[in-house]
Structure formats: C-alpha cells, structure tokens
C-alpha cells in the first residue's frame, strides 16, 4: 500500500475534491485550449490570459475546466495555483521543473527524454505543494494524467505567443 499512499497524498486528494481556480475566462481575449489524454479520455481545458502591468513583466491568469481522474484534476489545480499571478519566465521555470519531476520515468517507458536538460535534478523543496505529485513517477501510466494540464498550458502559451 505504500505506493498507493504515495500517489494519493492528502494534498492531492484535497486539490481533487476542492479544485482551485476552476472556471472559465472570456475567450477572446483569453486563450481557450483543450487537452486530451488519449489513454482515458481525460480532458482539461485551460483558459489563459496575461495582465497588462505597464512596463513591468505581464502576469498570467489561468482558469481550469474539464474532468478526469484525481491525478489529472489535482495536477491542473496545483498548476493553476502556481501559475496564477506569475510572470512568463517564472512559469517557464515552473514547467521545466515540473517536467523534470515527471520525465525520469517517461524515459523508461521507451521514449527518449525530450531534451537532455529535462533530466536535471529538481529541488523539490522549492516546489511547494507541487512536489506532492512526485509519487506519480512510481506509476508511469499516470504521468500522462499529471502532465496533461501542463502540456495544455504550454500550448495555450504558444497560442498567446509568449
């Protein structure tokens, strides 16, 4: 049972039961991006917008819709919580760290790592609640659940041309 308890940590169950930043943004101006997990049909819809901060770096606003398992939905909630109010460079760093957290096992599934950099060790202490998703790496199939919202976020950022 230790593996299971590692997967279903309290933080994850909390975000699953009480998802943060759930809702929609008007689109346009916001980007509306759908993501599917072909394995199970889980669906995440990411709404993304940037604020106008004058001369300062704009900040990102994100809302989450869709449905799916505890891992995909809690990961989306955790993602939204970390992204909201962050600048683009901060978010890029977050994405990189999160993918590192996950990608170790993706390699073992038979893939090449996306790029070598993604194999840098991550400092989970600095990741806050996000680190709770670490237990997922013991369950390779669930990595796709955990990364779904993040990949969708990346696509939305591309659409926003940031």
């Amino acid at each position, binding site marked *: 049972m230790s593996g299971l308890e590692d997967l279903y940590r309290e933080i994850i169950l909390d975000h699953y039961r009480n998802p943060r930043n759930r809702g929609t943004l008007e689109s346009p101006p916001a980007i509306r991006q759908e993501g599917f997990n072909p394995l199970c049909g889980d*669906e995440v819809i990411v709404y993304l917008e940037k604020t106008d901060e004058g001369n300062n770096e704009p900040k990102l606003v994100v809302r989450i819709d869709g449905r799916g398992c*505890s891992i995909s939905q809690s990961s989306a909630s955790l993602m939204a919580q970390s992204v909201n109010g962050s600048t683009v460079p901060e978010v890029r760093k977050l994405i990189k760290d999160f993918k590192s957290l996950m990608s170790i096992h993706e390699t073992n599934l038979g893939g090449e790592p996306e790029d070598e950099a993604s194999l840098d060790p991550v400092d989970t202490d600095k990741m806050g609640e996000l680190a709770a998703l670490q237990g997922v790496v013991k369950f390779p199939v669930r990595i796709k659940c955990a990364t779904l919202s993040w990949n969708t976020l990346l696509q939305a950022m591309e659409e926003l041309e940031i």
Partner: protein
Amino acid sequence: MSSSASPRILNVDKIRKDFPILETSKNGKRLVYLDSAASSQRPDSVLEAMDDYYHTTHANVHRGVYSIAENATALYEKARVKAGKLINAPKPSKEIVFTKNATEAINLVAKTWGLVNLGESDVILTTKMEHHANLVPWLMLKEQTGCRISYLEIDSNGELILDDIESKFDGVKLLAITMASNVLGTIPPVKYLTEMAHKNGALVLADAAQFVPHRQCDVSDLDVDFLAFTGHKVMGPTGIGVLYGKEELLDAMPPFLGGGEMILDVTLEGFKTNEIPWKFEAGTPPIAEAVGLGAGIDYLTAIGYGAIGEHERGLLDYCSNSLKTTFGEKITLYGPKETTKRTGLISFSFETVHPHDVAQILDDHNICVRAGHHCAKPLMYRLGLSATTRVSFSIYNDTHDIDALIIGLVQVVEMLG
C-alpha cells in the same frame, strides 16, 4: 443469487490450468483478470501450436515448392477455413480474409468497397455505441467522399431506439453496426436490421469483435455482407484479425494494399490482381498467428458457445447483484437490464471516484479492470461521462474473482469516496 451458477456449467479450476498467466501473483495476491473484452488470455495450446509451427514447418507461404512451405501454406489455409466455419461462412476458403486486427478489416471495406461505392448523396448508418474501429474509418471516408453519416440513438438502458426505423434507411448505402457493444454489452438486433437494410438496398457490415468471443455467430443466418472480428479476443494471438465478406462483393472490390501475393502479374505499367481472398492479403501474412488463432478457435469450440453463454450470464447476474447490494446508490451500472440482451461485461461508475483511480487501487489488489473511454468516445459523450470502469468475463473467471473485485472496490470507496 447464483453464487454457484458458474461452477456447475464450466469447470473453471480446470480451465484456469490451461492459462498460466492466471497462476501468477503479485505481492502474494493472485491475478484476477477482468479485462477480457480488451484482450483475452490464451490457453497454452495456442502457444504450443505456434511454437510447434515454428519448430517443424515455418516457411513463407503460397510461393514455395518444398515440403515445409507446402505444409505452412496448408496450415495457413486450414486456419482460414476454421475461422470461416466458426462464423458459418458459406465459402470459408474464399470469403475469409486475414488482416492484422478487426480494425484493419473494417478499414479494408471502407477503403475499397466504400471508396468505390459511396458519394455525396449517400449515407452510412451506424449507432451511437460504436467502437472507434467502426466509426473512424467511416469518418475518414466521409472526408474523402463527402458522404454523410447518421446515427441510431440509444435509450437509457443502452439499447437501440428502433422507432420509425424504416425512415432511418433513407439514402443509406451501408449499415455499419456493432454486434455487441464493448461498453454496454448490448446486443443489437442485427438480423432484423440486416433485413431492413437489404429491403432498402443497403449493405451491412457487422463489427463482431465483442460478439464472436461470447456467442455463436452465424453469417449465413444473419445474412450480413461483411463481418469483422479479431484474434486476440477469441483466445488467439495478437497480430491477426478476420474479415468475412460475401464472395461476389469481395470479387468486385478493388484491391486494398499492393505487394506480393495479391497479384497475378506485374509489369512496369500496371498489375493484375489475384483471386479472392489473396487479392486482399498483400505481403507475407500472419502465418504463425493464423495457426495460433486456429488453436484458439478449437479451444473455444471444444468448450462450446452454449456453456460459455450460460457461464457468463451467471457471472453477470452475480456481479451486478453484488455491486448493487454493496454500493447501492453510490454506483451506476450501464447497459441493458436483462442479462439475455447482453454479453459478459459490466460498465459502472461511482459518483465520487474516477474510473482511473478505481483501476489504480484495484491494481494494488492485482485485479485488472479497464478504466477509460473504451475507444467509444461518442458513446461517452452520449452518456455524459468521460470514462467508466469496465469488468468483463471469460471462461476462466468465476465468482471468486467477483468477490475479490467487491473487496477491492470497498477499499476504493473508503480511500477516495
């Protein structure tokens, strides 16, 4: 309750001995395999037949003059006849095409018969409970030919709504329909619909991937024009599927893939196609897989569809009763209420737990169930779900498996409910 129903019909303990994977265990828990609708396990006789083939006979087929090549060809063609007889094809040696899976079989029809015979004014009639294998090929054909696709609706029991059915055949050239839903278990009235289709000048393709493993399939009686099923769900190996088509239709169809074996002559300018069924079997076919499929069919027919059906109905009753008794309002079961109207599988969902999480926690008990859209997304949209949990039965399952399932599910609900 029919807790002892299954042991009376089949000697499951004895059957399980033929399936070594069922003797494996993880963390001291034996494997409880409840995912035969995705892929069945296979008896050792199937592996032995293939190994024996490789040990004594292997050579490429249809082109060799020497003995082992002749024997390989004979074994391959014998498997074809066996597959044909299983579904009572009138001319098995001509009307059975080996493909790589059921999906390819359906695509073959779409990309040969379909491309030639369908145009903008034509309609393909199908249902809202099809597997993607019997839907995406038609959606692709729609893109290519401009034909339309219309769908028979289902009611709240997951049965087809047949009111005013005659009008649904307006402009229809093909009815493409499942013989058993892989999500609901529903067995639509394909014989009746085939009569209807023929009366209206439409042909019928039946997706029997979930039917052939469970019920006697008789294409002569049904009178369907095409039928597909897949080896790995009928105790055969992966890598092989079966297309049945009426001789005169196969004869008239253009070839599918080009290459060796499907030709009579090739010049720098063009080619002449071979006779059916070889016209549709380009390249080296799945020879050992055909031999294995033959052995799988032998195993299945030795047990007999009568016993299989009765056994499964017993498990169905036992399982749905146990689920309802244990979880009451918390659980929803999908599909027809009457066990006689369905095959041996049950899809269900809990209000508060996602199927993925259900399957994950059951895996900790070494119980295999499927969670997801089951390659039937339009049906999921229709049911207003993104996924269900599905348990499916075969001859090697018994009520102990279901008891284990219930214990596992109780823990699921405790953890995440």
